[in-house]
C-alpha cells in the first residue's frame, strides 16, 4: 500500500541535521515522510560547522534536549548504521586572566548543570596546565566536561538521511521550494520546477531560509544569515583529546579547536563572515582568518608552528536572542518549525529531530521547548 504520489503524513522542508534526523525519527514512529532539500542534504550550516558535541555553555533549560541528543551521538553507529566519527573525548571551556569574573560564572553554571545531569570539573593554574599543557599563559581557568566531545559534521546529516531512506522516507534533493500554503486539511508545498507535495503536517527545518517559509504563514522572524570561519591544519600526531573553546563576551576572542583521529586540528570561531543564501555560497573573509589565527596563538601558542591547509564556510541562520525557533506554529495548525539553531545547533541536532518527531506523533513532549516558541517574535 502506498500513499498517492506526492502525499505523505509529513512534509519536511530543509535537509540539514534537524530535518534529516526528524525524518529518521518520524519513520521510526511509523509516519510517512517526504523531505525536500534545495541542494544536497547537510551541505550548509549542518555540514560546515565546527563539530562540537558540547552540552556545557548551553542555557540550563536546554540541557534535557542536549542530554537526549547525546544519547543518539553515543549510539550513532547502531542508530544510523554508519560512523559519525563521534569522539567522546571531553570538552573544555576556558577563560583568560583578564576576565577573572568568568570563573565565578563557570562555578555558578556547574552548580546548576549538575542538577540537569551534566557534571563539570573546574580546573585552574597548574592543575589545568599539567593536564592540558597546550594552553598559553593567558589562560586562567577551565570547565571540563568528560562526556562531551566532537564529531564529523560532513557525515552526520547525510547519514541520518540515508538511515531515514532505509526506513522508507522519501528524500528529494535539488528541489527548491518556492511556495507553501494550507489548502483544506493539507499543506501544499510547491517546488520551482512545478512539482507539488502534500501532507497534513508541515515541518520547516530550513535554517537560514526558515523565515522565507514562516512568513508565508504570517509569522516572519528575524533570521540573520552568516557564515562560520572554519580552518584546518595539516595532520599531526594525535595529542589533543578534548574539544577546546574560549568563554568570553567578545566575538573575535571566541575561538575553538579540536583534533580529529586523522591528526588534523580543526579550528573555528572569531568573527563570522557574511553568507549569501540566494547564491547558495558563503566565504571566509581573509581578515577573519587572520583574526582567528591571532586568537588561536594566544589560546594555544604551540599551534603557531602548524600550517592551515584549508578554510571553509557555509550558510548559517542566527536568531537575535541566540535561541532557535522550535515548536508548533502560532498561526497554523499542523505546521511546525525547527530552525535558527546556528551557533549551537550541531550537538542538539539529533535531539531536535527526535523531539520534533515525538511532538508531531504524540502532540506533546516532556523536553522543555517553550523558550523557542515562534510567537516570541509576533508583532505587538
Amino acid at each position: 500500500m502506498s500513499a498517492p504520489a506526492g502525499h505523505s503524513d509529513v512534509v519536511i522542508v530543509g535537509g540539514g541535521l534537524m530535518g534529516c534526523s526528524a525524518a529518521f525519527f518520524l519513520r521510526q514512529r511509523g509516519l510517512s515522510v517526504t523531505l525536500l532539500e534545495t541542494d544536497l542534504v547537510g551541505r550548509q550550516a549542518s555540514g560546515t560547522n565546527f563539530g562540537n558535541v558540547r552540552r556545557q555553555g548551553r542555557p540550563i533549560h536546554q540541557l534535557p534536549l542536549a542530554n537526549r541528543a547525546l544519547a543518539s551521538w553515543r549510539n550513532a553507529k547502531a542508530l544510523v548504521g554508519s560512523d559519525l566519527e563521534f569522539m567522546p573525548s571531553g570538552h573544555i571551556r576556558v577563560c583568560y586572566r583578564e576576565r577573572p569574573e568568568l570563573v565565578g560564572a563557570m562555578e555558578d553554571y556547574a552548580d546548576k548543570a549538575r542538577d540537569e545531569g551534566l557534571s563539570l570539573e573546574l580546573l585552574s593554574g597548574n592543575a589545568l596546565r599539567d593536564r592540558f599543557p597546550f594552553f598559553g599563559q593567558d589562560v586562567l581557568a577551565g570547565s571540563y566536561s568528560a562526556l562531551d566531545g566532537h564529531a564529523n559534521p560532513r557525515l552526520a546529516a547525510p547519514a541520518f538521511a540515508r538511515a531515514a531512506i532505509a526506513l522508507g522516507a522519501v528524500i528529494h534533493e535539488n528541489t527548491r521550494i518556492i511556495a507553501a500554503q494550507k489548502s483544506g486539511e493539507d499543506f501544499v508545498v510547491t517546488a520551482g520546477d512545478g512539482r507539488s507535495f502534500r501532507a497534513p503536517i508541515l515541518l520547516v527545518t530550513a535554517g537560514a531560509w526558515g523565515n522565507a517559509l514562516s512568513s508565508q504563514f504570517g509569522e516572519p522572524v528575524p533570521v540573520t544569515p552568516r557564515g562560520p570561519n572554519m580552518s584546518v591544519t595539516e595532520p599531526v600526531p594525535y595529542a589533543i583529546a578534548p574539544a577546546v573553546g574560549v568563554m568570553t563576551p567578545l566575538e573575535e576572542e571566541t575561538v575553538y579547536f579540536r583534533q580529529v583521529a586523522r591528526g588534523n586540528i580543526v579550528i573555528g570561531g572569531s568573527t563570522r563572515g557574511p553568507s549569501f543564501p540566494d547564491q547558495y555560497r558563503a566565504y571566509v573573509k581573509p581578515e577573519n582568518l587572520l583574526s582567528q589565527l591571532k586568537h588561536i596563538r594566544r589560546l594555544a601558542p604551540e599551534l603557531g608552528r602548524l600550517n592551515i591547509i584549508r578554510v571553509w564556510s557555509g550558510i548559517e541562520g542566527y536568531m537575535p536572542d541566540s535561541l532557535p525557533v522550535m515548536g508548533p506554529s502560532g498561526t497554523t495548525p499542523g505546521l511546525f518549525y525547527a530552525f535558527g539553531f546556528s551557533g549551537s545547533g550541531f550537538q542538539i541536532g539529533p535531539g531536535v529531530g527526535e523531539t520534533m518527531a515525538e511532538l508531531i506523533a504524540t502532540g506533546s513532549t516532556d523536553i522543555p521547548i517553550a523558550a523557542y516558541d515562534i510567537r516570541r517574535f509576533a508583532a505587538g
Partner: protein
Amino acid sequence: MAEPRVIIVGAGPAGTRAAEALVRAGLRPMVIDEGQRSGGQIYRRQPEGFGRSYAKLYGTEAGRARDLHQSFEALLPHIDYRPETLVWNIADQHVWWANAHDQDAAPFDALIVCSGATDRLMPVLGWHHAGCYSLGGAQVALKAQACAIGREIVFMGSGPLLYLVAAQYAAAGAKVAAVLDSAPASARVRAAPDMLALPSVLWNGIGLTLALRKAGVPVLHGVTPVEIRGDADQGVTGLVYRTAGGDTREIACDAVAMGHHLRSETQLADLARCAFGFDPVSRQWLPQCDAEGRSSVPGVYLAGDGCRIRGARAAEAGGQLAALAALADLGLAVDAAERAHLLDAMADYARFARGLMRAFPWPQHQAASLPDAAMVCRCEAVTAGDLRQVVRETGAREANRAKAFSRVGMGRCQGRYCGLAAAEVIAAEARVPVESVGRLRAQAPVKPLSISTGEDAA
C-alpha cells in the same frame, strides 16, 4: 587620475612578458612570485652559486631562457617585485600575500594571474612508494639542484615533458631504464597536422626521441602501467607494465617519474570567482576567458599555462596580450598592430596545443580499471576502493560531495594532484560523464599558510 594598480601573480614566461608590457606603458606593476628567482618552471633558474651553462640547463630553449631572464632583470628597477611570496587568497579587489617575514592585502585595479601548471597524474598501484616523482618534480630536482631522483629511473606517462625530462636526465648522465609512453604511436600520426602549426617545436620533440634512442634508452608506446613495486624500507624497486602487444613485463628501477602532460593551476582564478567551463578535449574544468585573457570577472586577466596548457612560447604571448587587454580596459593606449600580431601567433599555439592533447591523450580508461588497492589521494591515503565504496554506498556523484564523505582531495595539496583522476574514478563507478562530476572548489589558502602568519616580529 592616480596610476592604476596592476598586480601580476607569477614571474614565469607569462608574468615576465606581462610586466614588460605594463612597464613599457609607463606603469609600475607589483609582481608576486612563489619562486626564489624569476623564470617559472620551464625556465626555472638554478640557485645563486650554481654554474651550469644555459645550453646545459635548457638545451634547444637556451636562447629563449636567457632572453626571458635578462628581460626580467631589466625590469627590476621598474617593478615592485616580491619573490618567495605566496598569494593565498583574493577577495574584494585585494590579493592577500604572505611570505616568511610579512603579510598584507594589496589592492588592485587589474590583476593578471600567471599561475602556471603542474603535472597531471594518473594513479598507478604502488605510486605512493618513496622514489616516485612527478615528471615536473624530477625536472626541478635536476634543473635547480643538479640532483637525479634515482640511479635507475623509469619515465612513464605521456606528453612532451615525458621525453624532455628523460632526455635531460640521459644528457646529465643518469641511467634512464626506459621511457614508457601510454599514448599509442597512432595518436601522434593523427595529431601531426595540428602540430605542424609550430614545425620547430615539433622538430625539437622528434629530436628528443632520437636522442633517447641514440643513447640506447628503450622507448615504448601504447604501454599500460600495472604496478610500481616497492616497500616501505627500500622505496621503489621495480615497475610492472603491459606492452601494446599485451605482454606483461617487469623492469628493475629505484625511481619512477610519471605524468600525463599538464594541468592548469586554477585555484587563484577560482578564488577570484571566475566562471569555469568544461573543456572536452583536455577533460578539465578551466576558467573561461577570451582570446586576450579576460576572465568573466572584470579586472581579472588570465595568461599562460594557468589558463590553457599551450606551452612556454604561448605563455609569453599570452602574458603580453593580457597586459595589453588590461591597459586597454584601464583606458590606456595600446598598439593595435602588436595586439593583432600576438593574436595571430596565439592561434598557431592553440592549434599546436590541440595537436599535443591528441598526440598524448589523458588515459581516462586507466582510472576505471585502477585496482581497488591503488592509492588515489596520497595526502589522505584514500584508495580507489575507498572512493568507489563511498560512491556506491552514499550515492555521492559530485566531486565535492565525494570529498566530504571520503576525504579524497582534502589534504595539503587540496586535490591538485589527485582531483582529475578522482573525478574519473567517480565517473566510472557511477557510470556518469566526468563533466557531471564537476570539479573540487578551491579554498584558501592556495598553499599551506602558517598559523603564525600576521604575528608581530618580536
